[in-house]
């Protein structure tokens, strides 16, 4: 249980809020690289800021204010040039650093004028990595974008994005809540399939550890022991807004009542012949069944979404009754408060990396190891989110067949 003031501290991420300041100390994934095969610019809203993400013809990614500083026109309807994004209203041209490069009529009237040097647009750095576009909305100097070791694993990768109509923090609390898996995913799935039991193995013990990049939660169920990797290695609540269980699930605040779920998934492929994926596809997953109007409940993360949105747009933590299964959640909240204080005090918060020597294929604990063998019975259906496009499924199957053939030949 929390006071409403403390709850607000955790949930509000707009500019100038404590949590907003904390989250702005980290690079956030905000889109897929492949989305810019079909478009040059798109409107995005991140932590309450309305912005436009674009790629110019030189290949620079920019993230600038949604509204042109001239007369506030919508730059999501602007057009890209060799360098920068040009407003469709009067043609002012902005580059990815926030500089104004051209003001057509102003420069016609005053060829020697310097008006363009006196205006700027809000601009944030964007970096492409692992098929994702990452933005940094905080003060300079920015920390390094983490170079997670998992990004280099061999396999078929895909990025899946969805918008969840609730606050980001209730999504992230799920990242350190082991017991929910038994009920929300195992037992409820059986009910949805019309099965009457037997129920999933019960959790008997939980453990939590801390490391440089967050927390690890560990579990023992009635069918496992202390020798099981779910206990010895555990799963990662990756600081500050991600779950890592071999794939990544970031929960990026769009604003205080909606969250961008950004998933980075990898499926192991057979054999060990070199495999290079030309491009990591990005697709957008629906959250609601258009026919029934109800939330989709068929896939693992969709089930999570149902739990999260069910808590309300912003979960009212003044009405909670926390129990033993919530120890991780309480630990997470406490650490969030501590790290907000650290930022207020001018310190770097947990998990920021500034030393390039430390940022080389950074290890994260993973059950099964980094280079897990592929299952022998062919490519597995995508179980995490509903709506995988046929072309992505087909590409995965083709990658599997290509690797299986290379393995058989080799």
């Amino acid at each position, binding site marked *: *249980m*929390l*006071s409403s003031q*403390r709850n607000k501290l955790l949930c509000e991420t707009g500019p100038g809020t404590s949590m907003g300041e904390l989250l702005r100390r980290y690079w956030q994934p905000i889109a897929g*690289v*492949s989305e810019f095969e079909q478009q040059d610019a798109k409107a995005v809203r991140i932590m309450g800021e309305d912005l436009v993400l674009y790629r110019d013809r030189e290949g620079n990614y920019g993230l600038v204010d949604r509204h042109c500083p001239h007369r506030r026109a919508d730059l999501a309807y602007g057009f890209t040039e060799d360098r920068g994004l040009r407003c469709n209203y009067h043609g002012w041209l902005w580059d990815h650093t926030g500089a104004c490069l051209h003001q057509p009529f102003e420069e016609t009237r005053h060829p020697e004028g310097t008006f363009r040097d006196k205006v700027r647009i809000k601009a944030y750095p964007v970096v*492409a*990595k*692992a*098929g994702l576009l990452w933005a940094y909305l905080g003060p300079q100097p920015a920390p390094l974008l983490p170079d997670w*070791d998992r*990004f*280099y*694993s*061999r*396999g078929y*990768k895909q990025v899946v994005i969805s918008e969840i109509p609730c606050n980001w923090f209730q999504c992230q609390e799920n990242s350190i809540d082991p017991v929910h898996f038994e009920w929300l995913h195992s037992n409820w799935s059986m009910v949805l399939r019309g099965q009457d039991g037997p129920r999933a193995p019960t959790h008997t013990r939980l*453990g*939590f*550890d*801390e*490391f*440089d990049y967050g927390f*690890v939660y560990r579990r023992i169920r009635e069918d496992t022991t202390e020798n099981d*990797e779910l206990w*010895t*290695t*555990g799963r990662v609540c990756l600081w500050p807004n991600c779950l890592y269980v071999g794939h990544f699930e970031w929960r990026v605040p769009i604003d205080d009542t909606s969250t961008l779920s950004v998933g980075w998934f990898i499926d192991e492929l057979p054999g*060990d012949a*070199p*495999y*290079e*994926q*030309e*491009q*990591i596809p990005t697709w957008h997953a629906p959250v609601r069944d258009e026919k029934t109007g109800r939330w989709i409940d068929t896939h693992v993360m969709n089930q999570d979404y149902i739990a999260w949105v069910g808590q309300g747009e912003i979960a009212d933590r*003044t*009405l909670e*009754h*926390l*129990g*033993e299964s*919530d*120890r991780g959640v*309480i*630990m997470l*909240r*406490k650490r969030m408060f501590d790290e907000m204080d650290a930022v207020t005090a001018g310190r770097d918060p947990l998990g920021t990396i500034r030393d390039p020597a430390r940022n080389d*294929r950074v*290890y*994260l*604990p993973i059950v*099964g*190891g*980094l*280079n897990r*063998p592929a299952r022998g019975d062919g490519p597995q259906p995508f179980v995490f989110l509903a709506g995988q496009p046929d072309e992505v499924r087909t590409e995965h199957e083709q990658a599997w067949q290509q690797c299986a053939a290379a393995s058989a030949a080799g």
Partner: protein
Amino acid sequence: MAGTTAGPAPRPAESYELAEARGYGLTAGDLRRWDPLSAIQIHWARKHGLSPDDARRWAREGVGVRDAVRAVRLRITPEQVRPWAAAGFVPGDAVEAAEAGMTLAEATAWLRAGFILPDAALLVGDGWTLAEATAARYAGVNRYA
């Protein structure tokens, strides 16, 4: 590696335990020296100056490395944890209580009222009394009580 999987070749397969140890900058020798602690616990203990013997001593009391590191910082001894365990708390709760300035009697009262210790400690740290927290907990349940 924007948009592609290009990069260094995958490392050869090895035992999960060793791979994990190496991920934390540990060797097989470290694992032996710190047995039975796991790689992540060894990493955290070393980072915070907790010796293998001390980590094992805390573990015998049921206190994991994360809480042991905090306990040492608060100058709590393993022996001080025992009354907490005897009173039905998770041993590491003693550390949580000490951080919040709660006595065993206070923590027991909160527990009897249905607040597990980390929850109670956070509330106490925010200035709540048990009476206030109990009233707030039921405020939305029975408005006419």
